[in-house]
């Protein structure tokens, strides 16, 4: 228990230091945050136009699509704001920069993940809450459910991206696969499940788990169903454990780059 507390303290401190570093450059932070929110809003316009013309897309109305965007955007944002190195693991390994983390007394994967934040991710994170506030039916219960669902979504995003990045231990340069996983995860999560057909459904519930980030949380939000939280939490823990195990397996193959460096 003490160990868990120590790690929570460590993650909290890492997060606080990252936030301090980000707000030091306020103009840059605000530009990137609002730029990313605007970026996401462009797709809201597309969906408004399309659904305005045709009524619904595969049974999804405008509010449904926006709710999916809110869930995915905030989950993705939280994942990259808290664990900013999640899509840089391959690069860190290839450059031999893992040596710095191996010498420190904290868990290597957690230490790597938490040692950076992505500035534009704050815009993604905020965008989801903004959309939620603008959608009809906002209540404290709905807000709380949304907050829990995005934490689960962020854990699944982090676990999937970290596993894809860990392929670099086995393949060398795995940036192509890793960026493909990112594109596929986002594309499958941000569009209605029904457009992809039944044949592809198994993908969303296994190797590219968009279902637990977008489709199942959407059903939970629409029905205000807290009963879906325990199974989703269990699934997030499974993905996190599998991803962690895969990273540790890869780490055995890591060869030091003998790089001199320091983290302050």
């Amino acid at each position, binding site marked *: 228990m003490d160990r868990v507390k120590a790690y929570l303290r460590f993650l909290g401190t890492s997060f606080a230091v990252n936030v301090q570093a980000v707000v030091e450059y306020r*103009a*840059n932070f605000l*530009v*990137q945050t*609002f*730029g*990313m929110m*605007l*970026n996401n*809003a*462009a*797709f809201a*316009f*597309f969906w408004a*136009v*399309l659904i*305005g*013309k*045709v009524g619904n*897309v*595969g049974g999804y109305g405008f509010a449904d699509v926006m709710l999916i965007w809110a869930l995915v955007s905030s989950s993705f944002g939280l994942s990259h704001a808290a664990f900013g190195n999640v899509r840089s693991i391959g690069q860190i390994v290839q450059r031999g920069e893992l040596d710095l983390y191996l010498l420190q007394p904290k868990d290597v994967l957690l230490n790597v993940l938490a040692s950076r934040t992505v500035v534009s991710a704050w815009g993604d994170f905020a965008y989801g809450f903004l959309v939620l506030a603008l959608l009809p039916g906002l209540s404290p219960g709905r807000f709380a459910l949304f907050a829990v669902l995005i934490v689960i979504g962020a854990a699944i995003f982090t676990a999937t991206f970290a596993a894809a990045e860990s392929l670099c231990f086995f393949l060398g340069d795995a*940036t*192509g696969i890793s*960026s*493909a996983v990112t*594109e*596929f995860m986002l*594309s499958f999560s941000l*569009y*209605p499940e*029904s*457009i*992809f*057909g039944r044949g592809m459904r198994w993908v969303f519930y296994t190797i590219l788990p968009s279902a637990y980030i977008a489709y199942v949380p959407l059903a939970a939000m629409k029905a205000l169903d807290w009963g879906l939280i325990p199974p989703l939490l269990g699934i997030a823990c499974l993905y996190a454990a599998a991803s962690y195990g895969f990273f540790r397996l890869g780490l055995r193959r890591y060869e030091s780059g003998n790089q001199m460096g320091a983290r302050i």
Partner: protein
Amino acid sequence: MSGSERRAFRGLRMKARKYAVAASVSFRERTAYGGSFLGTALAYALFVFVFSRIWGTVYAGRADIDGYTRAQMIWYFIVAELPGMALSGVFWSLSQDMKSGQVAYLLSRPYSFVLYSYALGAGKALANGPILLAIGCALGFLTAGPPPLSSAGQGAGLVLGLLLAGSIYYLLNLAIAMTAFWVEENAAFFWIFQKLALVAGTLVPIELLPGAARRAAWLTPFPAMSYAPAKLLAAWPGTGGALGLLGYQAAWALLAALACQAIYALGRSRLRVNGG
């Protein structure tokens, strides 16, 4: 041809050769390091796939939307996405060159910075474009059947439309990147540009936009970068309509080139280089 005319012609040819060599170097660089393009190609294929599914769902039980059939809409998207994808990443590399001072090494050389930069972009687009087009055509065939291409004239119009669209896209990227002469954090300008380009003619044809948005879109260069070439393939507007679209694109290409030249002339004096 008189002697002075011959000399002027030779001078012009020599100038053109410089930029052709720059374009050729950029082209060969892209083909030699093709692996780095894999992500873009994959993303393009994924977007085409996703949108083909969206249109497949939307058109269930419908023959057309604002005059576009399902097949036309898929082919529209394949072409509309092409210029931006073929030149993906150019803003970031141009902007980085401005911020890092790398651009200073180009200023003293005997060529126009804007034309040289354009030549590099052209080389990149000519290497990437045909590969993406082949991917788009393969997916288009699988999801929508053969392209709605009915004559050689339409094919020529499409190629010219794509070249002009790519030129406008590149020049506007360069213009935005050069704002780094004044504002170091210029990424937000690019994001705004990129998203306006998406909604004003890339994701859906202009005809589908609400009246006010449609009229506003026509006052911007965005339809010239995506709508024009896509329309030339998906819903051929006849020879007169095609010439009108190509003229609209040519006008925006000229305006974008003049804007680049003006921004460069103003911004160059602000460049400070330390060390060497």
